[in-house]
């Protein structure tokens, strides 16, 4: 397409590393995806927003296909697309609006409730204008949602006729395309990349709201988010942590070591002792690999056991996750996003000839249903699993969810 050679090489390199699972950890994946997409926006040639959306979508499909279960890739791509759409919509709608106002992505403008008749009319105008203007656009669907405040209705309807409006919008679009690029890049920087840098702080800041003194907290696997959460809480409160060792990856060992180095009273238990130890536990804190659209969790193998044991003992389960892990996809079957890795760690080759006769499975992830989770703690606050759909609506555009 219209992607430069250098950038293409960078994209290819990233894809290769994703395929080989050389880059692990959704944080790094997300950051790199955002950087690449920002470069795509800035270096590729596009005259119209829809062309840009096409380019970004194509790149996104390639990246997501490299490692389908690394949902962070798709999430970042969709967020960038949402930003692009928001910015372009903001530009087009405002005639004589404040520049600053436009630059902020409109969360306020996202009011589904205010779908009045005149809104529908205006959106129909938009639809006709977009379809008439461009060819080769894959996003020919009507733009489902738009906002408007009541004031602009009166202003718009008064002066221009339909045709004149269309022409005006076309000209405006051509004009404003050149303005859009820096806006979009600025948005990507602020919204996405800078956001990624502050997620740990945002989550850790809430730690004191959830942990009281002399508590016993149980966790599993290794998660930098949970680590920062607990370490921040330990600066003001004294509590104990039980870490399940998470066979066969044994991530729990590293987690316990780093927590104890930070001065937290830590005990390592085997996975099999989770139910036995659960009556002593006050809260369960988990990290997540991804959060799905129904509020379910994809997390390291063993989390389902931990969450189920907590449910049986009525222990609250808190999930510390950043918003970039939130994915608009649903799991049509429990193991839709699961991946199996080498069974070497389960039954290694030294066991001898029985290897040939036995089926060995080593799934890396676990699916935890939304009824096991009490609360999601993310960088912008907290949300119960039933609220997750709102977060998704705020961050993603429904058109993008179907493409990949």
């Amino acid at each position, binding site marked *: 397409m219209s992607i430069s050679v250098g950038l293409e090489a960078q994209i290819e390199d990233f894809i290769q590393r994703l395929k080989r699972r050389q880059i692990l950890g959704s944080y790094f994946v997300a950051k790199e995806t955002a950087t690449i997409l920002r470069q795509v926006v800035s270096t590729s040639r596009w005259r119209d927003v829809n062309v840009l959306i096409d380019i970004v979508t194509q790149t996104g499909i390639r990246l997501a296909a490299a490692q389908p279960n690394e949902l962070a890739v798709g999430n970042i791509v969709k967020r960038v697309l949402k930003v692009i759409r928001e910015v372009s919509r903001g530009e087009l709608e405002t005639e004589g609006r404040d520049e600053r106002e436009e630059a902020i992505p409109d969360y306020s403008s996202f009011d589904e409730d205010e779908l009045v008749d005149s809104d529908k009319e205006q959106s129909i105008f938009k639809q006709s204008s977009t379809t008439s203007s461009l060819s080769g656009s894959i996003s020919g669907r009507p733009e489902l949602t738009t906002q408007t405040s009541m004031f602009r209705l009166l202003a718009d309807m008064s002066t221009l006729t339909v045709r004149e409006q269309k022409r005006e919008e076309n000209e405006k679009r051509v004009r404003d395309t050149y303005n859009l690029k820096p806006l979009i890049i600025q948005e990507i920087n602020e919204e996405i990349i800078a956001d990624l840098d502050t997620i740990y702080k945002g989550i850790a800041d809430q730690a004191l709201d959830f942990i009281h003194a002399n508590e016993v907290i149980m966790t599993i696997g290794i998660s930098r988010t949970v680590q920062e959460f607990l370490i921040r809480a330990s600066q003001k409160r004294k509590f104990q942590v039980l870490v399940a060792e998470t*066979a066969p990856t044994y991530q729990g060992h590293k987690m316990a070591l780093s927590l104890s180095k930070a001065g937290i009273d830590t005990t390592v238990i085997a996975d099999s002792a989770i139910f036995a130890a659960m009556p*002593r536990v006050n809260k369960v804190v988990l990290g997540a690999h991804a959060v799905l659209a129904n509020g379910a969790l994809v997390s390291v193998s063993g989390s389902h056991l931990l969450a189920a044991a907590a449910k049986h003992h009525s222990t609250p389960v808190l999930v510390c996750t950043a918003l970039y892990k939130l994915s608009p996809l649903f799991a049509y079957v429990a193991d839709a996003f699961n991946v199996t890795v080498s069974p070497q760690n389960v039954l290694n080759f030294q066991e001898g000839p029985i290897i040939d006769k036995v089926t060995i*499975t080593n799934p890396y992830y676990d699916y935890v249903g939304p009824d096991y989770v009490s609360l999601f703690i993310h960088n912008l606050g907290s949300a119960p699993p039933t609220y997750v759909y709102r977060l998704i609506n705020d961050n993603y555009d429904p058109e993008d969810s179907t493409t990949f």
Partner: protein
Amino acid sequence: MENIKSSPLGIPNSNSSKMASGSPNTMGQPMSSSYENRWLSTGEDTKKGSPLVSRRKSITPEENKPNNSKEANKGKKDTRPQNPNEPPKKAQKDMTKAERRAMQEKQRQEKQSRVAAGLPKGAKQAAELEVKKNPSPVSADTDDTKQKKKALSKNQQNQVPWLLHLDVPKTSDALTKDLHPAVLQLGLYFSEHKIVGSNARCVAMLEIFSKVISDHKPPSDATFSRHIQKHLDPHIAYLLSIRPMSLSMRECIRWLKKEMADIVEEDPPLSDDESRTRLIERIGHFIRERITMADQLIVQNGLQKIQDGDVILTYAKSSVVESLLLETKKKGIDFKVIVVDSRPLFEGKHLLRRLVAAGIDCSYHLLSSIYVALKSVTKVIMGAHALLNNGAVYSRIGSSMVAMAASDKQIPVMICCETYKFVNRTQVDSFVLNELGNPDDLVQTTTNTYDAKKSDTAVLANWRDQPDLRLLNILYDVTPSKYITLVVTEVGLIPCTSAPVVSYKFNCIIKTCIDFYFYFYYYLLYRFGVNTSNEEFGKRVA
């Protein structure tokens, strides 16, 4: 006699072993008299003497230390987290009256200073607090005690606060003299986990006791029947100190003591030889009837519940479940087995080998991936260590998780358990009575010995140096009865809440039925030989 009180019922009391070591003193014989000289009459046993002596030397390096200095005594006793009051009493026996009074004065002053300092009154708790404050204690004592205090601090530091009532596993013990060498050998097997599994341990223990009984010659002033109980107590205590007894082993010992008491009550009193043979015969009968035959009946009963196309999930290794699965394969039923295993013992691997050798279609999972495994499972069958009075199952750690996960998915959970494991106690959580394993077992994460040597050390290799880090390795847990569908026993299939009824009624009514079954079974074996027994049994009794 305190020994009887402490050993079978409650938490193992290592002080009973110390009392026993005191007994040759009180009897006026030198402490170094070996078991063989006292109890075994014939000269052939002296051959066992020399390997025993050398083994004793290797097992008990610190045997000579305890009685050296009072302070060392106190320091050593602090490592045992219970009964700080008794040991000083023992040391007092050696001292004169004046020395004893001086020691009491010192203790009283210490206590006063402790209360003044705001520390708790008990010496043990004060030591604990002090140790927690400074992990490397500065003391003016000898190097000996300094080392002991360091060991104390590391030991104490690893104690999870709510498990302080459990014994930390001890690898060696002071008392090995005056014990039958077979018991010592058994203790070694237990401590190195060469014999694991409740049935295996019970049978081994009963057989060894049978041997001890047959070898025992009472002293001239006592009859065999009265003396044998007192004689067995130090052996029991020794086994307790090596590894806390399983609940089923305690039941066996309780039964054995009852038998010994019965023999004493016998009127007219039996001669020595008669009582000996009777005891040995009863032990053999118990093993045969309550364990071996019971297993076979359980297999028969369990077979009714397995059909073609079943996918059976089992956890860790249970000897009864293994027999059941092998028998199912022999009958030609088409089924699959999923073996779920867990750290650190990986007992499921042994089961896996046996099943694969028999040609059964097997899968292998670790506990953390059990939900993936449960997607295709139709039944869960597990073994038990003991069945508690409230219907809960006391079993290998992790079985409660398997039962919970299966019941969440409405998959029936069957427990195979012999009636001798029905215990007259109740536990509502897993911590009140449990066994602590070796925490270092959790450190090694690779089972591949090549990798273990080649790569750098495990993440937690130096966990003892981390002041805030603890490793917890417990071996048993309690599964609530609501997760269990049914229990397969030799008397039939019962709901788990009927356990107390069965164990209560067992001596009255059901025992006679079992006796009938057994004698009938023996008759069949005699007539038709072993191989056809199962089909014949099914035909005759059905």
